[in-house]
């Protein structure tokens, strides 16, 4: 089939077709699977901050503010964790908001810093 014929099909035929249902079902299945895997979170107990240089662990039930290598500040307050004063351009980590459940993650990709809430028997291995 030439590309011109394909263009004509797009211009004339229905936007959806018969095989689409397979793809959409597959996507829904993958989402369900990922929810099942990621949803096995346990009681939150610790905050782990992983940077390219070091790994810091703090209890989540004690309020504190940690400045990480001059790049951002991690605030632990009332069992919730969030990031402020990030120096990266996109501020995705600040927009991630508060996390508190075991297994949740805030990532600051430009500086390679990841903040994870972990539990006693969490499936995540950090390190």
């Amino acid at each position: 089939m030439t590309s011109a014929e394909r263009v004509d099909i797009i211009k004339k035929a229905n936007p959806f077709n018969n095989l689409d249902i397979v793809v959409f079902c597959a996507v829904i299945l993958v989402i369900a699977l990922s929810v099942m895997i990621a949803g096995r979170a346990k009681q939150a107990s610790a905050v782990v901050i992983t940077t390219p240089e070091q790994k810091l662990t703090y209890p989540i039930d004690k309020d504190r503010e940690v400045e990480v290598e001059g790049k951002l500040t991690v605030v632990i307050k009332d069992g919730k964790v969030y990031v402020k004063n990030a120096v990266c351009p996109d501020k995705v980590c600040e927009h991630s908001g508060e996390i508190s459940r075991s297994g949740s993650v805030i990532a600051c990709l430009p500086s390679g810093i990841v903040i994870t809430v972990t539990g006693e028997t969490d499936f995540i291995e950090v390190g």
Partner: protein
Amino acid sequence: MSAKRICKDAILTAIALLAFMVENLFPPLFFFAPGVKLGVSNAVALITLIIVGAPDAFVVVILKCTLGAVFAGNPFSIVYSLPSALISLGAQTALYLTLFPHLSLMAISVTGAVLFNTVQLAIASIVAGASMLPLLPFMLIASAVAGVAVGLIAYLTVKFLPRSICIDDASERRLK
């Protein structure tokens, strides 16, 4: 390679880059999935694949990722964007060339979006040295929605763009 084709590639690259830059100015669309955007520039890649050709789509995507990383002021982000974009486009190209009339642009785009964000999360996990698997469900849901939207944008664009722009009339003249 005709001058017209080079011209089309250049214009589409510029549009993709513009879409990418403008989208960066807006706050994240999916508040629950950090880093997931609508990805209008992916629609441009898909449109390039349809109206120019597969090699051209790869050229547009590589240029968009490289220049986009530089213009966005964060050259390191290319480590995340380029491999995911290439894998995503590779899958979309394969689906488009083999299954297309049976598989709609929306389904192709969803596949691409899901792959893009999964690969990006995997790279981020490797770079950061910490598993980001818990984010995957949110990323997948957001990318499925974004994928359908992007596919729809590509579909409507090709549908309403004049036919003379959508096809290489030189090749059609040869056929006649």
